[in-house]
């Protein structure tokens, strides 16, 4: 909060809301995959779609704040912002800038330095989780909706796994069935 004057805050908020609405309005149109995913073994073109990445309206686009900030590559504990992020994803060896790009904050980057968008974040995950990426492309890992013989919808890795703490969260199960004795 210190970084911006009280006057610039509403403008930034307005900008965030505007960008988020644009994302909402345009996002659910096909986020098309490039080539690799669209051809089946039989040569048939399959139109696979994914919803937009689950980006927080409070933080994205990251350049809202980071554009004017000095880049600090030093590994440190975050206190002022993003202190809610708990890194439980090979945290001993990795840090923010291993995935987020320091110079282009609205993008991610692979180990080779290639910039990739959040829409294609699966490529980043796939660097380590190769077999999972392969299964995901085949529709085996993760949920698919749509038609078994037509248009299918995928989810991105980040829709189910928080990239900072990817273990699937436990949940309360639905109630057990009634025992036969209790059925009237």
């Amino acid at each position, binding site marked *: 909060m210190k970084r911006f004057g009280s006057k610039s805050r509403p403008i930034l908020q307005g900008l965030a809301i505007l960008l988020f609405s644009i994302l909402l309005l345009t996002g659910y149109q096909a986020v098309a995959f490039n080539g690799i995913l669209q051809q089946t073994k039989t040569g048939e073109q399959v139109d696979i779609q994914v919803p937009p990445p689950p980006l927080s309206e409070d933080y994205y686009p990251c350049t809202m704040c980071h554009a004017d900030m000095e880049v600090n590559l030093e590994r440190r504990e975050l206190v002022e912002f993003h202190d809610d992020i708990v890194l439980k994803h090979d945290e001993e060896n990795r840090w923010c800038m291993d995935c987020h790009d320091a110079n282009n904050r609205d993008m991610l980057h692979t180990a080779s330095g290639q910039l990739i968008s959040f829409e294609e974040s699966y490529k980043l995950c796939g660097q380590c989780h190769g077999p999972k990426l392969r299964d995901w492309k085949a529709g085996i890992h993760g949920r698919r909706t749509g*038609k*078994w013989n037509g248009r299918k919808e995928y989810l991105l890795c980040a829709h189910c796994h928080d990239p900072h703490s990817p273990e699937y969260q436990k949940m309360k*199960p639905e109630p057990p069935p009634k025992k036969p004795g209790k059925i*009237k």
Partner: protein
Amino acid sequence: MKRRTFLKAAGITSSAALFSACVPKEAREAFLQKDFRSLSKDEVAGIIKRLEAQYTQKFGKPFSVSAKEPIPETSFGYALDISRCIGCRKCVYGCVKENNQSRDPQIHYIQVLELEKEKGIDFMHADMYYDRDEVPHEGHFYLPVACQQCKNPPCVKACPVGATWTEPDGIVVVDYDWCIGCRTCMAACPYDARQFNWGKPHLPSEEANPTTHFLGNRPRDKGVVEKCTFCIQRVREGRYPECVEVCPVGARKFGNLLEEGSEIRYILENKRVVILKEELNTQPKFYYFYGT
């Protein structure tokens, strides 16, 4: 004319006259309805019209009953990733909602078994009534079981009246109007996949799914057997079964076994797959696999 012949003829004629005079036309048609596979297309169309009107009136919203035939060159298969399932039972209730099962008495097509990791797939120690605060529970894994859509189905062989059979796309279906409720099929099924309407099914109007199939989720009556049909009303339209779409972890996979490159074929070709009670030679088309 002999006295006996006269009495026979008189008896038959008068009961027929009484039947046609006293019983309303629709009830008469329903009583005389043949089994589904003997019906002509016109007869099916007539029955569907009657059923749609009946359901629409009963539930107070427009119902559609389809008799859509199998898609050619299709044999459905199902796969469930044991390493993914967390036992949340979302599939159980998604299925109930989609398939118009009775809410009270309760009918579920899917039974989610909680098993101990140490014991593996051991039905002796399986618990379908687990009530946890959170799942997956430590040291346990989950195995949802519903109809295995066997290629060699003991239930079909057991039915004394031919009210259940395998469709060309591999779905084992029940003609609810032809079922006599003897429950022999239930005794024959080694997976406990068939459910009987012991009481009058209770399906609240606001929860009823009005998009139905004659051999699937149309409302049932008391005294008939029902089971999973891979959501015949959905899959014959090309859609995934409800449980596939409702599973939060994406453990459930469905597709055409005859289609090279389909999800189900990928699993059978690349993963470690098990079927339940293989020794019984039921040849299920429901495969369990280890995704990791």
